[in-house]
């Protein structure tokens, strides 16, 4: 990243190649369409290139930083597009199926990581995992989720805090960098 900060385009290309699949997978999961996902990815990577100086290794890995930017851009795109772009949230995380054109990575570690996350999510109370999925993959605000589920905003915020806190407690001892 030091080279990227200095304006080294070749170093940035290495960063892109290393993270493009996971970044695009997230964008596609949230936006549901290839064109929208690619727009998000382009905005996100150019933002990362131009704001490389804002990366702070003390706050997390390059992967976490980049995926945070991708997520932020995808949320903005979903909010701009209104409800039309949010169909993907109707599919629960555990029910996502691999369709044609999906790159299936047979890497055992990746499968293990996915299994850990699925298990942790399924161990959460349903009302906590639901709000986490609606927010993270659907791009909904806590207010929208509160309206959707008919519960107070404070309750939704509490469920998010509690649920994500449990995931944090569950993941941190595993020592796997996001």
């Amino acid at each position: 990243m030091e080279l990227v900060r200095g304006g080294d385009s070749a170093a940035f290309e290495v960063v892109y190649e290393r993270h493009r699949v996971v970044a695009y997978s997230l964008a596609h999961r949230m936006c549901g369409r290839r064109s929208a996902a690619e727009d998000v990815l382009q905005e996100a990577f150019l933002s990362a290139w131009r704001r490389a100086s804002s990366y702070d290794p003390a706050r997390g890995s390059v992967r976490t930083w980049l995926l945070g930017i991708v997520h932020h851009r995808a949320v903005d795109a979903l909010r701009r597009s209104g409800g039309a772009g949010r169909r993907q949230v109707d599919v629960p995380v555990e029910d996502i199926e691999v369709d044609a054109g999906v790159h299936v990575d047979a890497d055992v570690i990746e499968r293990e990581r996915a299994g850990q996350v699925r298990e942790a999510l399924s161990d959460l109370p349903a009302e906590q995992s639901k709000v986490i999925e609606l927010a993270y993959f659907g791009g909904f605000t806590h207010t929208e989720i509160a309206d959707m589920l008919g519960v107070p905003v404070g309750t939704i915020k509490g469920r998010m805090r509690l649920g994500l806190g449990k995931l944090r407690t569950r993941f941190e001892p595993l020592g796997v960098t996001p």
Partner: protein
Amino acid sequence: MSESEHRVVFESLGAFALGALPDDERELAAAHIAICPVCAEDAAALQRAATRLIDVVPSREPSPELRDRIMTVVESEATLLRAASTPRARIGRERPRLAAWRSPGSMRWVAAGAALLVIGAILGAVLPSGSGPATRTLEAQVGRGQAWVVTTSGEAQLVVNDLPAPARGRVYEVWVQHGTGPARPAARNPVDATFVLRSGRVDIPAHLTRDDRVMVTAEPAGGSRQPTGVPIVVTARD
């Protein structure tokens, strides 16, 4: 930072990490996190947990064309940055203006109530060929350093080269002034308009028009909602 603000933000950190806060609350939380180490640490840990959710998403390949589109922009901007670092780009065509700025006369000008200190702003369309007709560049000299604002179809980027280091505890903040209106932070959340690098690129998260002027001031960490210092960079309007 008040205790009530801390409590409100702390309770919202789950929603913040999930991207579920509306824009106004997100700005408030980000500004607080920038100055509260307790919330900053918690937010980072919750963000890491949220990022793990991606592990359950099936892997998909973006198209090779996307890589080409991104790298075309990156390489053109890298070229601009390299040009900014060459000795030739520092040839002192702005020296007379800098000298004037340093002279007692210029200080009288400031003391006389000039609102802004304009440091040698020049205008030109000096991008390398292939940058596209919608690209324009505004350039300013800052002490020994230089600054460019490159605008392409409204998307703007500040390129700085060899800026003086901001004082301890302070950061640079980018402002946009539209017409004769007040200068506003270049991002809705002032902290997003700040930077500390001395050479490199800073994305200006605002859609610029020909009536806009870009300024840079040194501000307290976390940024300010109104400029508290004299601008060290002011671009001209074209």
